[in-house]
């Protein structure tokens, strides 16, 4: 018993010190994340299309250099650097921004349109080997948010978005199939 008391007395300060240090480390990590980026709760997922039946492959021109799978019944049009995917419910737009940043996080965080602050429920993805971020942007005068994917490839940021609630799932599928096809 005497020995146990002695051990207990010895362990308690050690446990206390460990808890304090651990707490500080955890606090520092959370606080530094909050300062470092505005993207909330980064996770790593790989959205994929499990079954490609009912989808058709669309390969863009060399101007945009990508390939996606699109529901067969949807029409696709590429013009002036933008791809428009239309269904009866609405449309999904894919366009591209050049960037001088060498990764997506820097692009989002330093974005002149304040994407880092405005992108709600953002999630980071890896899409076919590419960095990607998805999230929602409020649209002035509309109850429906814009769902958007930002995919980084070789100083390009592809933006895939829709403002139709009914097309959110299709956008997920299309974004999950996105492949960068450089010339």
């Amino acid at each position, binding site marked *: 018993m005497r020995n146990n008391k002695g051990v207990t007395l010895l362990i308690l300060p050690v446990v206390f010190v460990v808890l304090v240090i651990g707490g500080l480390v955890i606090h520092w990590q959370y606080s530094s994340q909050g300062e470092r980026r505005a993207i909330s709760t980064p996770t790593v997922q790989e959205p994929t299309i499990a079954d490609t039946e009912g989808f058709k492959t669309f390969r863009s*021109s*060399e*101007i*945009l250099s990508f390939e996606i799978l699109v529901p067969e019944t949807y029409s696709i*049009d*590429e*013009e*002036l*650097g*933008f791809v428009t995917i239309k269904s009866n419910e609405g449309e999904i*737009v894919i*366009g*591209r*921004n*050049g*960037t*001088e*940043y*060498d990764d997506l996080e*820097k692009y989002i965080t*330093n*974005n*002149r*349109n*304040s*994407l880092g602050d*405005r992108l709600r429920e953002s999630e980071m993805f890896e899409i076919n080997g590419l960095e990607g971020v998805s999230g929602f*942007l409020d*649209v*002035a*005068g509309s109850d429906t948010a*814009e769902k*958007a994917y*930002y995919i980084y490839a*070789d*100083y*390009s940021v592809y*933006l895939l*978005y829709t403002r139709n609630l009914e097309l959110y799932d299709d956008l997920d599928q299309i974004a999950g199939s996105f492949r960068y096809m450089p010339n």
Partner: protein
Amino acid sequence: MRKTLGVLVLLLASLFFVRDAFAADNVRVAGFGYPRNEYPFDNPFFQWDISYVSEIVFALNDQSNFGDGGVVPCEVSMLPFVNTVSSGSLVSGGHRTADVFIVGTLASELSALEASELKSFLENGGVVFISSGTDDISNVRYSNFFEALGFSDRFTGEEEELSFAGISSVPVDSPIVNGKFGKVHKLSHYPFRIINFSTLMPVALGFEEIDGFATLSLGTQSQAAGELKPLLLEKEFGSGYLSVAGTSLYLNDYSPENVKYFMNLIGHACKEQISLQPFLDLPWDYGAKGMSFSTAALSMSAYFDHEYPLLSASGLNEPSDSQNTTTIFKGLFRTGFDYSSHDGYDWGRLAKTKEGTPVLAAAGGSASFKGVCGPCGNAILIDHGNGFQTRYYHLRDDGLAVNQPGQTVQVGKGQQIGLVGHTGNVKPGGEAGSHIHFMVIQDKNGDGNFEDNIPDGMVDPFGWQSNDPDPWPNYAFFYNGQQRTGNASHYLWTSAIANLSEEFDSNGAFFNLEHYGASFPPGFTNETYKVNMKAGGGITIPYETVGYPLDMTIVDGTGNPVTHFPTPFTLTIDFSGFDISRLIQETLSVYSSEDGISWVKEDATFDWDSKVATFQTDHASYFVLAGERMDTTAPTTTAEIFGTQGESDWFRSDVEVVLNSEDNEGGFGVEYTSYKLDDGDWQEYLTPLTVVDEGEHEIQYFSVDNEENVEEVKSTVFYIDKTAPEVSISFNPESLSVEGVGVDEGGQTTTQFEKTGLLKAKFTVSDTAGNTLALEGSYLHFLRSTTFSISSVKYNSVSHSPGSNRYNALYATDRKTKKLSSLNQTWIEEGLFVNIFYYAKEGKSYIYIKEDGQVTVNTSQNGLVILYIETDSGNLKYRYE
């Protein structure tokens, strides 16, 4: 000299910069007549002997102003002026019945119904002019109209002077003040009282000269406290336009500037398409970077924000609900693309314009160095002499074409003016953020100064590519003491962007189908065309084509094909991937055909280094690159037959057939040889053929050379007979001798008899192929008796030894007739005795056969029966008949 020439070219370019694309419909001018309007346009002399309204009417009828060859291509047609406007009288079924409506100075109230119709007229693109009343007329008469338009303004207490009052300062720029007849500089006007112009744009303010007679009135009513009083107010309604002025603007005093204002007003209703000639190229050598124009141009890292491109206008901010969004030239509203308020385009890493890349003049002009500019860093400005200026920001300190404020240098299109750098505000900071910021400004007020047209002169060189309204030219704002509106954008690139949707409009476009390229220049069409390019089939062309023909069709917006065009477009044929070495180069030409049968040579130019044929054409049809072949001679093929040959084409062994083909001298070689054996199918000849079957054979063959010259079909016949003949020996009653006759399935035989000893002989039968049958034995012919026995039967080299045998034929003849009177034929083998005796007197032949001691035949037949001794595969047989 070169500089002078450059300036001359610039001057010429500026002269041709704005052009009328085509004549337009008439501008229909309507309005209120007398007495509703006291000073109507349709009767300028009604009230006054000399009315200045007449000057306007004269100008409207001046063909140098309107119509063919006029400043504005529209003719002016005056419609009957009316005293009332009813519902549907100005706009019916969405269509206007007039283009301009002169409300003028009303003598009575504008009714609510009239106000509603005028509002509809405005909203449907009509132009409306309202003048204030005279001093004895209350301006409340327009209240219904302004209420219908949602204005709070009233013509409360407007005052009209009775004589000349003053001349305005330079009016504020507007589409009417700075219209198709030029800029109106100073308006002669009487003042009318200040009104609330929060929703109407004042375009002419104050006075710089004041007549003494009016001074008192003006001083007390219009210029108190130094206020600027509006003389003229305007408002755009889409393509509709409202002008509000005092009556005196056109009534009491004549001023050429006032007339010009009305010319601009009427000219504004002329909706003819004014095409701006594109004049810009991208400001770096994208071709040297391996990029096409389309790829390079669309590799921007920041777009022009069509909603509020206010970045260069300090103190102007976007409304909160549009901040952080960018409206793209494609018509995409408030997107997440970069970046809000941006008033130009950025090209950086994606466009391969890294630090130090030469920045080139997008067009020729006068280059100057912008002085102090924190955010833009080193900036070059080029005035292109056509009312447009381009700017290039963030340039490096070195390599600048001009680096002192106030200096200018003339630069040519594509001339280096600086290097890509990161001076000023770039993100990320430092070299990593290097890019070109490129922007275009229009000198909207025509004063030669571009700074005072920031931001309202900002232009997107990609134009506005949407049927939705462009927000920028419809944005009205107050800046630097002036009311302003944004600017319309036009596609200003001299190169078209690849159109991937098969449709194109006035921006032009180019399309590719493998080695074919079709480039439609900006301004080629004013409507939407759809292009279909496919490989042509079912055509005939008397030349050697290089690749497949192009079948190009173009349809308009209603789906109707358009085959001929007023202006040409450019077609290119890249033949670098084709071997044309076998064509006579001088004959290589581009041909076109509407029906695929009759071909017309196009006037094409050939770049033999890049191997591209380029030509301009004004029609859509079949097109093909073709020429004459150097080699038009077919190759020659011969057949060699190998085997054991007899006579002529007969062989007594398996046969090997070898086909030898050879192209003519100077030809390009044999591509292939085909053959057909007997009734078989045509096959490509690859190796010699072996033919084993006996009988007659025919081989047909021809060759084709690498120039597609086809040889006529030849044929060779040969025979194979590997079987030796047989022989049939019998007495010939005609020749009265014993003869041997060859029997051979293959054809003819020859026989040879030779005595080989006193009582020995050899009888040989040969067929055409050279196969032989040789019989050897004893032989005795004496008088009328012939006797032989066969000891050896030899086929070619194979011998057979038959058993003992003997043949005898003994005959007698009638002494008188010398004809056969009797014949005794005997054939004896082991166990066999055959005797046939013919007796002519009885006309019978007696046949007696005994086999193995047994008489098997003992009979007679009428007539002469001949006994035949025949060989059969080495055996000896007999028969009689």
